[in-house]
Every structure is written in structure tokens, then in C-alpha cells.
């Protein structure tokens, strides 16, 4: 049986002062790093320190009204059953080969139709102003399995706004790191790399879309897309691109990797939709990892209340 966990009883929510001060220290540390004084840390820990250790704690996170009450999957489940073809095709491969990737140092190239200068921003620059929150989201894989993941992150839109996208920015394009020396899947050329994903501007600005840097209150492990990844809970998992090194504001709808690989099976939108079957299997139901029986898949993975209006008048069978 499912043990429902109400999001409103989490301890961090009933200790607001504590939360406040710890969050401040994180931000302060992160800002310090952003100002280029990471080497002469003045306040103790920096965001750099925080992210350097493979398993640092991200404590006293804000809680979110968008979190589900569904019971989260275990940490072991979330970190041992992954689709991350850069590490190999099997679900166990990302965990098995995660150590082959080094994520230090990390920077994200941001460019395209925006007022701020195109540049390689360090991870610290990227993270500095954003308070972290916990978002417990359902994750629905296009392969008809699902999980519930307590992500740690911040709204994607908050980051994008900092770069002041212009009116020509109609879409946001993301790319994953290309490093065949450390990604055996890239050496094997099992997909066309870099892995590319994209969102329409309004989708990217939707408060549900987040960039995640952790889960279960710990920094992300490599198999989950460290150090920074997208999470778009109303779309199939492959849209939530991992280990992001590039964000670009573009005018045209970008071709995403799975659409390039198998266009009749994977489209750009990839909204979770029980009515529109995958050519090879039904999307009407899913198996929640850890549960015995299948359950019915919900439209937009249950997030329709927040996202459905973005697709008014759109033929979702046509734009799968």
C-alpha cells in the first residue's frame, strides 16, 4: 500500500527561522563564489565547496505548493534505475559508470537572443541568486514506468529572466556535455550527440519547470544528471535533459535528440498523454517503480491544472 505523505508536515516548514538563516548562508556563499572569491572563502563554505563533494547536503530547503503528496521513491531506486545514454543503454549503466565522469569545474554557456552578454557562466554564477526549494514531482518515463522524486532546485524561468531574452527568443535550447573520454555511451555513438532538448518560451517560464541540482536533500549524483539538469514534470522524462552545458535562446523550434533519432515516435512536445499511444506501446497506464500493479497515467502527468492552458487549441495527437 501507498503510504501517503502530506507535504505540509515536513520539518523544515515548521522551522522557518532556521530555514531562513541556512538559506541565507547558502546564498551568501554562492554569491561569494560568483564574485570570483571562491578561493578566498570569507564566510566558511562556498557553493563551490558545497558542490565539490560528491554527496553534500542541501539543507533547509523551501517547500513548494507544487509538491505532490505521493510517496517518493527510495533514494536507491532513484539513483540506480536511470536512462542516461551517455553512460550506456542499460538502466544500471549510469550508476555503474557514473564515476567515470568528472563534473569539476562546470560552466554553462548561455547565448542567443538575449540582452545580457553571451558567455560561459560558472555553475556558481548560475546558482548564486536562487534560493533552493524542494519539489516532489512525479516523473513519467516514455517507456511507461514512473517514479516520484524529491528534487532540489529552482524555477528555470527565474534563471532565464536574468539574461533578459529578447522578443526573438521563442524557444530555449539545452545541450548536455559532450565528453567521449568520460561518457562511454558517446564513445559508442549510441545516439547523436550532443543530446539536445528544448522548450517553448512559455513552457520554460512555467513555474513547474525547474533546474535541479539535487534530490533527497543531497547534491545530484552523476547518474541523475549532475551538476545541473532540467525537470519538466508534465512531459516524458527524456525532455528533462541532464548535465546541461549550454542554454540558448532561439527563434526556431529546435530539433531534440529523440525526435532526430526516431521522428515518428518522439516529437518536440512529448507531453504526458494517456490518449496518445507510443507507436510501440500504450501510454494509458504506467508502472510506478516499487509498486506491483500498473496505474492509470494522468493527462499532463497530473499537472494539467498548471500547464493545460498552454496547449489550448493545439492538436496534441498531431504535436506529440
Amino acid at each position, binding site marked *: 500500500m501507498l503510504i501517503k505523505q502530506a507535504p505540509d508536515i515536513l520539518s523544515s516548514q515548521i522551522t522557518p527561522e532556521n530555514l531562513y538563516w541556512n538559506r541565507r548562508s547558502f546564498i551568501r556563499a554562492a554569491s561569494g563564489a560568483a564574485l570570483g572569491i571562491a578561493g578566498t572563502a570569507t564566510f566558511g563554505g562556498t557553493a563551490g565547496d558545497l558542490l565539490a563533494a560528491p554527496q553534500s547536503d542541501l539543507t533547509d530547503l523551501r517547500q513548494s505548493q507544487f509538491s505532490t503528496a505521493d510517496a517518493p521513491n527510495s533514494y*536507491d531506486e532513484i539513483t540506480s*534505475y536511470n536512462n542516461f545514454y551517455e553512460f550506456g*543503454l542499460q538502466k544500471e549503466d549510469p550508476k555503474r559508470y557514473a564515476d567515470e565522469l568528472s563534473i569539476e569545474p562546470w560552466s554553462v554557456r548561455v547565448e542567443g537572443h538575449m540582452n545580457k552578454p553571451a558567455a560561459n557562466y560558472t555553475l556558481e554564477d548560475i546558482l548564486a541568486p536562487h534560493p533552493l526549494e524542494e519539489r516532489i514531482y512525479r516523473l513519467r518515463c516514455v517507456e511507461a514506468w514512473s517514479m516520484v522524486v524529491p528534487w532540489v532546485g529552482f524555477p528555470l524561468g527565474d534563471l532565464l529572466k536574468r539574461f533578459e531574452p529578447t522578443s526573438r527568443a521563442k524557444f530555449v535550447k539545452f545541450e548536455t556535455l559532450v565528453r567521449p573520454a568520460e561518457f562511454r555511451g558517446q564513445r559508442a555513438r549510441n*545516439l547523436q550527440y550532443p543530446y539536445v532538448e528544448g522548450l517553448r518560451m512559455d513552457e520554460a517560464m512555467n513555474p513547474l519547470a525547474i533546474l535541479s541540482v539535487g534530490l533527497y536533500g543531497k547534491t545530484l549524483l552523476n547518474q541523475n544528471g549532475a551538476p545541473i539538469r532540467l525537470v519538466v514534470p508534465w512531459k516524458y522524462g527524456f525532455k528533462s535533459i541532464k548535465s546541461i552545458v549550454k542554454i540558448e535562446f532561439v527563434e526556431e523550434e529546435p530539433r531534440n535528440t529523440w525526435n532526430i533519432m*526516431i521522428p515518428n515516435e518522439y516529437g518536440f512536445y512529448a507531453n504526458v498523454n494517456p490518449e496518445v499511444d507510443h507507436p*510501440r506501446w*500504450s501510454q494509458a*497506464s504506467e*508502472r510506478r517503480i516499487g509498486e506491483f500493479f*500498473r496505474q492509470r497515467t494522468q493527462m499532463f502527468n497530473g499537472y494539467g491544472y498548471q500547464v493545460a492552458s498552454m496547449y489550448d487549441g493545439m492538436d496534441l495527437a498531431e504535436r506529440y
Partner: protein
Amino acid sequence: MRSAKTLVFCLCLVPALVLVWDSVTGGLSVNPIEDITHRTGDWALRFVMLTLAVTPFRWLSGWNEVIRYRRMLGLFTFWYASLHFSTYIVFDHFFDIRSIADDVIERKYVTAGFLGFVLMLPLAVTSTQGWIRRLGKQWSVLHRLIYVTAVAGVVHFLWLVKLETSEPLVYAAVLSGLFLVRVVRRKLMRAVGHQVSRGKTSATF
């Protein structure tokens, strides 16, 4: 002879025992039903290949005794396929006949797998000495259905995967090899038979 057969029987059970062991000791992934489905499917395919390899092996090795194991291997193919099929019926769809019917009709990889399994039913039923006697020559004609099952099994796997086609293609290659041996032998036999009938050489096969 009897002990050899017992040994082979036990060996054929090993994959199932390993699966049970892994299920009990937590050796499966966090999606155990997927693991069970994949492993029983893999072994059904491997056993159909083994079954089809018996006759060519007998030709090439000249070891006629090996034919005694063909029925056992065939029945183990059916057994692993049954486990695979029941995993799908019970765990995947929990006897939801409508969704199963939809799957069989609409998903071509399910159609292929279902066909391969159904065609094995008459073969399993008629695998006894009594049925072999009763059917006479028709028995071997009927049991050629195993070729269709083998092809359906490989196609089932090929249509199921996304881009990672290497594994199903290995099965396809093995199966093609097993077919090729048969075709080549038949051609050779014909050629030799032709010559024999014209009295030019004596058959040496």
C-alpha cells in the same frame, strides 16, 4: 544415458533457478517485473535456438545421440516462453483481457510474440510418443511450425527495442545461420541424390 538426460534437464533449469534466487535475494533491479519479463524472454529465445541447433549439430558432428535431447530443449523453450507470457498476462496486465487484446492487435511486437507463443501450443501438446505415432508423417510437417515461432520470437525482440538492435540482431544472425545450414545441406543432398540416381557416384552422406 538416463543420468545424462537428468543432467541436461537440471542444466536447463539453472536460468530459472538463478532468476528465483535473484528475486529472493534482491538481485533484480528496482523494476523486477521488467527484469523477469526480459530474462524469461531471453531464455525462451536461447532455447529455441538450441532446439534448432540440435539437428545441424547432429549432421556436423555425426553424434546421433544428441537427437534425444531435442524434445527436452523444445519443451524448455515452451516453458520459458510460458513464464514470459504469464509474466505479461499476470504482472503486466493482471488479466485485463481488454488491454491485452488491444496490445495483441495494435502493437506489432506483441502480435509477433503472441503468434510465436500460440504456434508452440500444438507442438507442446503433440510432443508425446503417442502423438508422434498417431500423426505419423504429419508430425514432422506440423513441427516445422517451430521455424515460424523462432522467426516470430526474433522479430518480436527486434520490434520491441528502440535503437539498441545489436542483441536482437545477434539472434537474427544465429537463426539465419541455422537456416543456412539446412538449406545448404538440402542442396548438397539433392546434388548427391541426383548423381546417385544417375549411377555416377555412390552416396557418401
